[in-house]
């Protein structure tokens, strides 16, 4: 029997390791994805079988003002929350990484907000903070500033949500902490012997070695920010109020699907979102070659 080439062997082994995902993908993911693609080309109200409708949903989308509004809201959210979250996460991770007393407690405290996830309690709390009689306004009142209802004014509502996203930077922070831990001390020791100061060590060792995880965090944060749903849903009571200023794309999708029984249109929305995220991620991957450093 002819010996398999090394490459062929590698290929087989690769697929063996990949098999759980392949099976799962075809059985559990591909089917729903294809189904939803089909739905996007049909009228489907969930209570009766779908009926083919060609490009109807997509043409409707092109002239739907709410579609554009939700895109604008979502891009604003992504564009503002992701950079802030990552910067906070990185800075705090760097600070906490040095061995200090009680650093474990601080880590836990900073991570705490992320644990709330999409709980109802968070939404109530956030409303308590930012509504007209809320805590923020009370504090502002002490400085003689009269606050408005941050959460119910169209121009400011989205910022309360961005703030909520930033408040939950703990998840990214944990990822950075894990990566920081893995950087061997020997690198730092060598650098210190060479006379490199703190700042140089940061920029020439820590950051470059962190870039794979930074990249990971950027991609994940972007994807998840585009899909952010629960905060907007709970805080606006499922409506995107006021005046659609918190109408996240996924919230609009959800309303169309479950609120108005237009699952076909919602599926079309979903696929457009996928294309958008795909495009953005693609750009990220391409630019990654410039700055991500693998050993």
């Amino acid at each position, binding site marked *: 029997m002819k010996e398999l080439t090394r*490459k062929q062997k590698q290929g*087989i*082994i*690769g*697929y063996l*390791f*990949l098999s*759980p*995902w392949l*099976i*799962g*993908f075809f059985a*559990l*993911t591909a089917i*729903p994805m294809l*189904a*939803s693609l089909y*739905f996007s080309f049909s009228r489907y109200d969930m209570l009766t079988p779908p009926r083919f409708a060609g490009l109807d949903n997509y043409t409707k989308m092109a002239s739907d003002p709410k579609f554009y509004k939700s895109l604008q809201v979502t891009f604003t959210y992504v564009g503002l929350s992701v950079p802030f979250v990552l910067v906070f996460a990185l800075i*705090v991770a760097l600070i906490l990484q040095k061995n200090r007393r009680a*650093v*474990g407690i*601080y*880590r*836990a*405290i900073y*991570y*705490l*907000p992320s*644990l*709330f996830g*999409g*709980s*109802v309690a*968070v939404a109530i*709390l956030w409303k308590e*903070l930012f509504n007209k009689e809320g805590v923020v306004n009370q504090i502002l009142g002490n400085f003689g500033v009269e606050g408005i209802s941050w959460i119910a004014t169209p121009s400011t509502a989205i910022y309360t949500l961005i703030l909520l996203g930033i408040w939950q930077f703990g998840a990214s922070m*944990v990822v950075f902490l894990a*990566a920081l*831990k*893995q950087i*061997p001390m*020997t690198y730092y020791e060598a650098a210190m012997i060479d006379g490199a100061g703190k700042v140089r060590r940061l920029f020439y060792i820590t950051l470059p070695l962190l870039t*794979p*995880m930074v990249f*990971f965090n950027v*991609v*994940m944060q972007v994807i998840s920010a*585009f*899909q952010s*749903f629960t905060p907007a849903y709970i805080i606006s009571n499922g409506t995107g109020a006021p005046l659609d200023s918190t109408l996240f794309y996924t919230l609009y*999708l*959800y309303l169309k699907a479950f609120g108005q029984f237009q*699952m076909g249109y*919602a599926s079309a929305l*979903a*696929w457009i*979102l*996928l294309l958008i995220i795909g495009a953005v991620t693609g750009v990220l991957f391409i630019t990654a070659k410039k700055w991500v450093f*693998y*050993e």
Partner: protein
Amino acid sequence: MNKGVNSMKKKRKIKKQIRALISHILIIGIGVFMMYPLLWMISSSFKDNTEIFQGEGFFPNVFRFSNYVEGWAGMSGITFTTFFANSFAIVILAIIGNLISCSLVAYAFAKIDFPLKKIWFAIMLATLMLPIHVRLIPQYIVFSKLNWLNTFIPLVLPKFFATEGFFVFLMTQYMRSLPRELDDAATVDGCGPFRTYIEIILPLSVPAIITTAIFTFIWTWNDFFSQMIYLNRIEKYTVSVALRMFVDSMGNSSWGALFAMSTLSLVPLMAMFIGFQNYLVDGITSGSVKG
């Protein structure tokens, strides 16, 4: 001359102390900001329903545990004991599933070359980008046909098949950052890929593994939408589903009970995080690469 040097040293010391002080204040300040909502919720859990919203102070007038008792009793005769048990069961299975499947798959993407690798990787990432509400209905129909509704299966089985691209991606990135020389060394030593995976890469990827475990725990614990859709009977409800039952926009809401039970549901999450966090802190530097 000495005096000059001493005073310079002193200045630097004072500067250092000031900086330490400032960063301490900053950290504590941000910490308070982080904690405030949680503290509000905990303190509310000890208040009477009316006092929560109409009361003036941060601290309850009277500390009452009734919210906890009432809340734990749950509803329709099913207590939170059941709900917690269900949540734990699902979470533990999910963690096991994710750890095994995601690390296997990540190893393939990170360390092995095989045809169409890039395409599969792209597809895997793409699965992350499709909003859940749309996948939900077809998946639901599939599980319905298989008669697996009202069981834990739809919630747990996918985890054993690396369906959570996030963790595959995380581990892939992590494994990629481990130097190639390791693999080569292992091969030279006569290790096949599986042994390399088990004995070398996995141990070194412990931070990523721990991170995966923590996040799986938290996300699965908090995931209410899938749990709500797939679990029909109240005996199967999990904590996150049960919590939502406390708030009804058409009627009365049991705020005190909600906050009490929400506080309790945070306990395992915090415990998990703090417990494993120490592991992270101690680090694997002892068994690491250059050692």
